C-alpha cells in the first residue's frame, strides 16, 4: 500500500516533478507527525470542501468554464474543416493498381527494373535478396472518369463515380519501409510509439463540439487480417489521457465495459460519480496530477456514453436506400461499409475526428486477387460516404482522407506471371486522396516517374500532409505544441510545410 503510494509520486514529467517536490519534507512531517488526528482532520476539511463545492456551481459557471477562451489560443485562423474522417487503409495499397496509371509498363512486362530507378535504395529483406526484380504491370484496366478526367482502375467502380470530389495526392512519401513504424509515423508523426496521434492533437487543441460523445473515435473493421493494429495508433502519447481515441467495436457492445452489469439498474450511478468526483477533487488539490482530471472527465464521458453510444450505434432508423448506397455489407455491423455509415452518424453528432481502419492491403503475393478482394470490401462504402456527406451538405465542412502507410513496388515480389505477381513495400511514392472541406475537388497533385517508383513532381511528405491537415482545421502546425520531457513537441515536430496548392 505504502509502496504504491510512492510510485504515484514519481513522474518523468518535469512539470509534474515540480509539483511533486512541493510536497516536501516539511509538508510530509506536518502530515505524519501529528498522526492520525491530523489525517482525520484533513479528510474532514476535504469533505467539507467537497460537499460545498459541488453544490455551489451554477449552470452559468459551468457554461462560462466551457466557453472561456480556448486556453491554447486556437484556432489560429478560420478553419475550413469542422471535422475529419480518416479512412485508413492499413497494409499499403498499391498505387499503380488503383490510381497512379502507368501505361508504359505494359511493354516492359518482366524486364528488370533499371538500377537508375532504384537509385541504390535499400530494399526490404523480403525482396532485397531476390536475384531479379522484374517489372509487373498492373493487371487492372484504367479509365478516365468525371469532368476532372481522373484515372481510376476498374478495381474501384464506385469510387470512380465521385472522382470530381477527390483531391489526389500522387506524390506521397514516407520515411518508413515497414508497417509498424510507417503506420505509427503516419498516425503520430514519429516512427516510434509514444507520440500523440493526429486525432489526439486535434482533441487537445480544439476541444469537443459535443457533450455526449468523445472528440476522437476509432472504428476498426471486424475480422481484419494482416498487419496488426494497436491502440497506440490512436493513443494520446504524452497528452492528457482524455484525448485518446475511443475505439468502437462491432456488435452489441460498441464500447467495452460501458453497459451496466447484470442485476444492476444503474439508478444510483449519478450519485456514485458525484461522490467519486469529490474524492478525486481532493486528491487533485493535493497532488495536481493531470491524470486525476483526465480520469474524472473520462468517468463523466463514460456515463454520458451509456446513453449516447447505443443511440448512435443503432443503425435501424436508417432508410433502406441508405443501406443500398453503402452496400449490403452495411447491414452487417463491424464491416467497413457499416463503419462508414456509423462514421457518418458520429460526424453528424459532432464528433470531431473519426478514424476508420481497414486491414489487409499488404499484397506481397497475389496482388491482383488480393486487391480485388480489398476493393470489394471497401470501395462501395467509401464512395457512399462521400456521396452521403455531400448530399447532406456535410462535405462542405468535413475533410475525408483515404490512404495507407506507404505504397507498393512496381517490381514483382516472388514469381511473376501474366496473371499474378506480388508487390513489396514502397515508401518513396504512393497515392492518397482527400475530399471535402477546403481541398480542391477534381484535382491531382504530384507525379511519379513511369515506374511509379520516384516522385518527379511535387513530392508531398507525410509531415507536409500533417501540416496541411492541421491547416484545414484552423491550426498552425508550428504553434500547437506540448511540453514533455523538457522540450516542446508538435505533430510535425521540426518539419512540415502547408501545401497551399491543395487548398481551395
Amino acid at each position, binding site marked *: 500500500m505504502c509502496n504504491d503510494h510512492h510510485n504515484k509520486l514519481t513522474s518523468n514529467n518535469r512539470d509534474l516533478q515540480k509539483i511533486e517536490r512541493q510536497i516536501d519534507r516539511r509538508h510530509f512531517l506536518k502530515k505524519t507527525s501529528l498522526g492520525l488526528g491530523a489525517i482525520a482532520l484533513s479528510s474532514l476539511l476535504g469533505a467539507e470542501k467537497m460537499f460545498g463545492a459541488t453544490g455551489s456551481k451554477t*449552470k*452559468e459557471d459551468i*457554461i*462560462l468554464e466551457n*466557453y472561456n*477562451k*480556448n486556453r491554447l*489560443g*486556437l*484556432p*489560429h*485562423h*478560420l*478553419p475550413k474543416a*469542422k471535422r475529419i474522417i480518416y479512412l485508413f487503409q492499413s497494409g499499403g495499397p498499391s498505387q499503380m493498381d488503383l490510381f497512379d496509371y502507368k501505361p508504359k509498363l505494359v511493354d516492359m512486362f518482366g524486364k528488370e527494373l533499371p538500377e537508375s530507378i532504384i537509385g541504390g535504395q535499400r530494399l526490404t529483406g523480403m525482396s532485397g535478396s531476390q536475384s531479379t526484380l522484374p517489372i509487373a504491370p498492373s493487371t487492372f484496366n484504367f479509365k478516365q472518369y468525371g469532368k476532372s478526367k481522373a484515372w481510376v482502375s476498374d478495381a474501384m467502380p464506385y469510387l470512380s463515380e465521385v472522382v470530381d470530389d477527390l483531391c489526389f495526392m500522387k506524390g506521397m512519401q514516407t520515411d518508413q519501409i515497414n508497417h509498424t513504424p510507417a503506420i505509427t509515423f503516419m498516425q503520430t508523426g514519429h516512427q516510434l510509439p509514444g507520440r500523440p496521434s493526429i486525432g489526439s492533437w486535434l482533441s487537445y487543441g480544439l476541444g469537443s*463540439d459535443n457533450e455526449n460523445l468523445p472528440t476522437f473515435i476509432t472504428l476498426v473493421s471486424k475480422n481484419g487480417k494482416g498487419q496488426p493494429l494497436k491502440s497506440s495508433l490512436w493513443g494520446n502519447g504524452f497528452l492528457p489521457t482524455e484525448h485518446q481515441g475511443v475505439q468502437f467495436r462491432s456488435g452489441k457492445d460498441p464500447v467495452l465495459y460501458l453497459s451496466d452489469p447484470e442485476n444492476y439498474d444503474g439508478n444510483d450511478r449519478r450519485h456514485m460519480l458525484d461522490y467519486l468526483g469529490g474524492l478525486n477533487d481532493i486528491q487533485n488539490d493535493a497532488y495536481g496530477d493531470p491524470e486525476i482530471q483526465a480520469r474524472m472527465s473520462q468517468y463523466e464521458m463514460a456515463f454520458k456514453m451509456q446513453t449516447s453510444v447505443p443511440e448512435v450505434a443503432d443503425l435501424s432508423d436508417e432508410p433502406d*436506400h441508405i443501406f443500398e*448506397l453503402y452496400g449490403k455489407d452495411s447491414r452487417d455491423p463491424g464491416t467497413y461499409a457499416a463503419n462508414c455509415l456509423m462514421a457518418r452518424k458520429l460526424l453528424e453528432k459532432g464528433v470531431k475526428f473519426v478514424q476508420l481502419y481497414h486491414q489487409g492491403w499488404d499484397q506481397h503475393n497475389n496482388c491482383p486477387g488480393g486487391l480485388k478482394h480489398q476493393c470489394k470490401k471497401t470501395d462501395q462504402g467509401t464512395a457512399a460516404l462521400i*456521396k452521403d456527406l*455531400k*448530399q*447532406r*451538405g456535410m462535405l*462542405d*465542412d468535413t475533410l475525408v482522407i483515404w490512404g495507407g502507410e506507404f505504397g507498393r513496388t512496381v517490381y514483382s515480389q516472388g514469381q511473376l506471371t501474366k496473371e499474378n505477381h506480388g508487390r513489396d513495400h514502397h515508401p518513396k511514392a504512393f497515392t492518397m486522396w482527400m475530399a471535402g472541406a477546403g481541398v480542391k475537388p477534381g484535382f491531382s497533385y504530384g507525379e511519379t516517374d513511369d515506374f511509379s517508383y520516384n516522385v518527379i513532381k511535387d513530392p508531398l511528405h507525410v509531415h507536409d500532409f500533417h501540416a496541411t491537415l492541421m491547416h484545414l482545421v*484552423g491550426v498552425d502546425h508550428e504553434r500547437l505544441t506540448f511540453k514533455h520531457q523538457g522540450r516542446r513537441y508538435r505533430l510535425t515536430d521540426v518539419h512540415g510545410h502547408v501545401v*497551399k496548392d491543395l487548398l*481551395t
Partner: protein
Amino acid sequence: MDNSVPDFVLFLGRFHPLVVHLPIGFLFFAFVLEVFSRWKKNPMLTTGIPLALLLGAISGAVACVLGYMLSLSGDYEADALDTHFWFGIATTAIAFLAWLIRIEKIKIAKLNRLQPNISSLTLLVILLSVTGHYGGNLTHGSDYLLKYSPFGKEEKTELVAVTKLEDAQVFNHLVGPILDNKCASCHNESKKKGSLSFHDSTAILKGGKNGKILISGNASESEMIKRVLLEPHHDDFMPPEGKTPLTEEEIAILTYWIDNAKGNFDATVANVETPEDISGIASTMLGLSSSVVKGADIALPTVSVVTANQIVDLEKEGFTLRELVFDSGLYEVVLAPNTVVKGDGQAALKKLEKLLTIKENIIWLSLEDNQLTDESLKIVGQLPNIQKLKLNKNPLSDTAITELVNLKSLTSLNLYGTQVTSKSLQTIAKITSLKHVYVWKTNIKQEDIDEMALNDYPEVILGL
C-alpha cells in the same frame, strides 16, 4: 559595383547611422545650454558648453569618417550623397571653430558685436538640421518625411480611380503600389541598394548590380520573383529580414504582370489574359466590389467582442457557441437538432431573436432540424456576416429563402429536407456570393437545376 571595398570598411561604415547621433546630441545640447544660461541669467550653465562642443566636434569627425566608409558601398545616389557629405564636413568644421571661439583661442574683436558664441551655435544647429535631413533622405527616400503630411499633398501622377477592373492598368494600379510599399524604401532614386531602383520603368528594366531583374513572360526565371520566393531565412530573400515580406497575393500580382502582361508598363487588365484568382486579388486591391469574384475567400469582418453574459444568455436558450478564430469575436453558432419540438415554431422564433444581440459575430450558423418557420428566417436575414448557413430539415418554403437575399457573405446554404421548390433557385441567383447550395429531399428536381445552369450560378447539390 565596386567590390574592391574591404568588408571591414563597410562593416565600420554601417556604424555611421549610429554614431551620427552623438554630435547631434552634443551640439544641440551646447545650444540649449547657451540659450538657457541667457534666459535664466545663470552663467553657471555655460561651463559645460566647451566640453559639449569639443565632444560634438570629435564625434562629428568620427561620423564623417564612418560616413565616408559607408558611401563607398555605392548604394547611394551621388548627388544627394554629395550634399550630405559636404554639409557633414562643414558641420564638423564649424563645431571645432565654435569650440575655439568659446574657449577664446580665437578672438576677432571686430565681430564681438555679433555675439560669436550664440551665432556660431545657431549656425551649427541649422547645419545639423540640413545635414540630418539629407542623411535621412538617403536612408529613407526623399519623400519619406512628408509622405503623410496633412498639407501640400502633391500627387505626382494622379492615378485615375478605376471603377471597373478591366480599366485598371496592370503596372500603375496594381504592381506599382506593391513596389512602392514593399521595395521602394531601399530601392529608390536616392537610395539604390544593390544599384537597383524601382522609381521608374527605365530603372526597373535596367536592373541592379547582378543584372536584369525581370524577364518578360518568364516570372519564375525573373530575379525579382525568385528573390521573394526564397526561404525567408535565405540570405538573398527580399525584402530582407525585419521588413514586411510580400503576401502571396502580391507575389501573384507581380507574377501575373511579368507572365501574362509580359512586363509591359502600359498594359491594362482588359487586354491581358486574367485568371479568376488574379481578378479577385486585383479587385480587392482596388477596393472594387468582390461580388463578381468567385472562388476568392470572403474577408473576415472586424467585430466587437461577445461578452460572457451574452454567451450565457445564448447557451441557456440551447445554442452552442464556438469561436472560429481565437480572439476574433467570430463565432460558429449551433442550435442542436431537436432543441425545438414539433408544433412549437414560436419557440424557435423567440430563440432566434436572441441571436440579434450578437448578429455581427455569427459567421457559421446551424439551425438544423428545429421546426423553423418561414417567419423566423426574417431574423436570420439580419445576420450580416453569415458565410455558412444550415437550415436543413426545417419546414421552410420558398418565402423563407427570400429573406436571405441581403446576406452578402453567404457562401454555403444547406436547404436539404426543406419544402423549397424551383422558385427558390431564382432567389438563390440573387445571392451572388453563394458557392454551394444543398437541396436534397426538397421539391427541386434535376430539370429545374439544369434550367438554371448559368455561368455564375452556384453549384447546386441534389443528392440521390
